[in-house]
């Protein structure tokens, strides 16, 4: 067992774990009932699954150029994923395309009705 072999296997396991995250997200997309709960499933592979996959690539290829590219890709994904997630959730709430009957708490609607009363 050399260090290279260990890193190769660790990288492959990271890739498999990332792929498992993607599969779980796809199952959640098919099974969950409304856009907000589907978003809950969909945002997992976009950040943590991607982090695992790119970590696997960096562990397997072990090249400084690759590690630089992978770090930059992870940083960019972490910066941009919340933007789209926030906007999609905001649109789902504002256009009423979500399961508001089963929601335990809806603070945005409370704030909006308080604004209207003023």
């Amino acid at each position: 067992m050399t260090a290279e072999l260990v890193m190769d296997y660790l990288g492959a396991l990271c890739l498999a774990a990332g792929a498992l995250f993607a599969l779980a997200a796809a199952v959640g997309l098919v099974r969950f009932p409304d856009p907000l709960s589907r978003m809950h499933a969909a945002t997992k592979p976009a950040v943590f699954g991607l982090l695992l996959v790119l970590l696997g690539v960096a562990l397997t290829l072990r090249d400084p150029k690759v590690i630089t590219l992978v770090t930059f890709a992870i940083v960019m994904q972490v910066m941009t994923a919340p933007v789209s997630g926030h906007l999609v959730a905001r649109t789902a709430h504002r256009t009423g395309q979500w399961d508001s009957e089963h929601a335990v708490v809806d603070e945005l609607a409370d704030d909006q009705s308080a604004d209207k009363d003023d």
Partner: protein
Amino acid sequence: MIYILGAAATMLSVAAILTLWRLVSGPTPLDRIIASDVIVAIAIAAVGVYSVIAGNATGLPIVLALSLVGFTGAVGVARLISSSEGVRRLFDRRRAMKDDDDR
């Protein structure tokens, strides 16, 4: 090792097919845009698996480009849906103004 990578590629294929089903069946545009976000994430993961199997880094610029611009589609469609109500009101108001001018 190739078995682990094969299992990862198989899981990604199944995930892509399931996500594609959600993309096709909807029912709302938001479900479709969420599904297309997941497809972008699956594509990035697939390029990563390909790079490891092929043993070279030629695919990694694709990963970088997708992680840079992958969010713009969701942002655009979300803005379009949330403002389409306002656009319709603006359209109705303009039409009413035009009717007044014609009279």
